């Protein structure tokens, strides 16, 4: 039996063998399942047969962060319940080559599904292609990859930012000078959120003028410095949009110090605990809140359905996509976010 061709390129090798293995596993599983109802789950079909050997799933995060650990918590909740899945969290250490090496390891282990928060959309694409060749479904979170894969589950960056622009303009009364505290270039999220905000202003509040768009490196400290300079240069500044909460909270710090609380309209994005508390305290005007535990649960739900349904990675005609529901949290709406939903 030979499954290798004569080309020297890594390409399609072993697909055939893997395909055979997967196929026979599927047949075996289906065969075993067809004969009865699982006494524990009551389900009929392949899922009952999978209890024989647990399937593996893993999440490769960017680096330790509140968002990714909340995702992981949500995933674990769902996957543990299935009783048939071994789940673990792996850390990319903020290094693309570490994420690539972890992908390789998981592919070698024969994981069923890999959840991935890619550090870079292009750099992880070859690894995703390799996983796909091995029949492994990859589900990305928040940052999409240029190689098509099973599914992408993201915070609703673009449309959420449009809604922020609407609420933002309403608070400003439809006019005034605003500044954007932005992320450094080169990250898709930055473009999605910035474009959503600008398009939202154009649509709902065309009289509002963006007078500054500066990078504050996602950081609260850096945002304080940037906003101080911006206020000096633009004394008429009426509003600030931080593309994440940390930068918006940096602007809140400066507003507090300069006695501008309540006068300067400040919006963030993400909806982390600190931001929600700041809204309740009447400092931050608002933010786009996403339940990231839920985001993890949704990703895990999709993965479970794919794996228990024995849907191979090659079965997708195109990449699936799921946008997360969100709330534009302001003083009026923040109370609807339950303590157990805060992260």
């Amino acid at each position, binding site marked *: *039996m*030979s499954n*290798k*061709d*004569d080309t*020297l*390129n*890594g390409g399609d*090798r*072993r697909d055939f063998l893997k395909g055979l293995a997967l196929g026979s596993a599927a047949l075996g599983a289906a065969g075993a399942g067809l004969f009865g109802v699982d006494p524990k789950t009551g389900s009929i079909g392949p899922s009952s047969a999978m209890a024989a050997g647990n399937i593996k799933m893993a999440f490769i995060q960017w680096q330790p962060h509140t968002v990714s650990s909340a995702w992981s918590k949500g995933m674990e909740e769902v996957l543990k319940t299935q009783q048939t899945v071994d789940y*673990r969290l*792996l*850390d990319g*250490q*903020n*290094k*693309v*080559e570490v994420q*690539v*090496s*972890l992908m*390789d*390891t998981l*592919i*070698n*282990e*024969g994981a069923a599904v890999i959840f991935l928060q890619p*550090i*870079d*959309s*292009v*750099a992880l*694409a*070859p690894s995703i292609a390799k996983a796909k060749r091995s029949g492994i479904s990859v589900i990305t979170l928040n940052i999409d990859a*240029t190689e098509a894969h099973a599914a992408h589950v993201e915070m609703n960056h673009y449309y959420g930012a449009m809604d922020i622009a609407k609420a933002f303009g309403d608070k400003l009364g439809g006019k005034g000078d605003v500044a954007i505290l932005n992320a*450094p*270039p*080169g*990250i*898709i999220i930055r*473009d999605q959120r910035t474009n959503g905000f600008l398009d939202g202003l154009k649509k709902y509040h065309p009289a509002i003028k963006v007078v500054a768009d500066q990078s504050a490196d996602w950081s609260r400290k850096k945002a304080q410095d940037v906003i101080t300079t911006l206020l000096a240069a633009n004394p008429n500044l009426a509003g600030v949009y931080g593309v994440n909460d940390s930068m918006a909270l940096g602007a809140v710090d400066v507003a507090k110090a300069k006695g501008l609380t309540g006068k300067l309209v400040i919006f963030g994005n993400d909806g982390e605990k600190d931001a929600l508390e700041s809204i309740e305290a009447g400092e931050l005007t608002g933010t786009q809140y996403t339940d990231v535990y839920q985001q993890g649960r949704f990703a895990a739900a999709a993965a479970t359905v794919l794996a228990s349904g024995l849907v191979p990675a090659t079965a997708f005609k195109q990449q699936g996509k799921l946008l997360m529901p969100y709330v534009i949290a302001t003083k009026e709406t923040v109370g609807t976010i339950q303590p157990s939903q805060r992260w």
Partner: protein
Amino acid sequence: MTARSAAFALLAFFVATFIFFCVAAPRFATASNMENLMSGFSFVAILAIGQSFPILLRGIDLSVGAIVALAGMIVFDLELIFHLPGWLILPIALVAATLAGALNGWLVVKLKLQPFIATLATLAAYRGLVYSISGRQLVPGLSTTPIRDPWITGLETYFDFGSLLGISDWVTLPWVPLSFFIMLVVLAAFHFLLGSTRFGRSLYTVGGNPEAARLAGIDTARVTLAGYAVSGFCAGLAAILLVARLTTATEALGTGMEMSAIAAAVIGGVSLSGGIGSVVGPVIGAFLLGTILIGLTLLGISQYVQQILTGAILVAAVGYDRILDLRRRRRLVANLAEETHA
């Protein structure tokens, strides 16, 4: 213990670790895992070979990670902004990296800066330069454009010896990545350079005793400059292999890689007190680190524990190096005492 027996001890430790994981870790002893080890750590081995040169000269090169990013970004820009052909881009990137290394050497030789300080400064400077020339930021849309030049992506090629030898029906051999062979060529070349040329002998002498080297008429400045240039060259080569693997370069590429390179070199028996060591040890050191990282991941051990363990191994290696050094000094003193008595 002589340098040679220390090398054998390292090799024995590597083999023991390898066998341990083959037995203990699920799916460690598989062809695809061997591929992962070779493709994931050949560039670390190349960095470790380069790092050996400054360390042999009693110095250190902290800037290799930043040089990796610089060379990577040069490839990125020349390919995606200037659309130069790959066969031209690769040598340009290598020359730039070598020059970046030579500048480190110049700072050490001409400005008499401590190597630690000089390369810490260039670490920051080169990284800043990467951000300022980054095509990902200068041209919108490039950050999601992969590099497709066959000269570059062709470096991420695998050789199927199983089929070539016609034995793939009986055993599954790992497909060997081209990067592994490039690493072997670099290893052979620099091993020859160190062991069999006048430059190599001069380098050991300068590292072991710079004053004696100067008195012996060795151009210590030139040797030192060349040593740092070698480190830069190796960083450039590692960058090219990484870009081929990732099909892009990022500004943060290579962050923290100096740690892996220094750890591999020191674990590989290159003495921090200079003048002692080879380039074979660092290569084994790099694959030892890789074996441990992959093995522990397959065993399901937390990566935070892995990082602690890597640190512990490094401390052990440095401590061992220190003991050897003290022993050598004591022997030297004893020899001198004997001579004066006689």
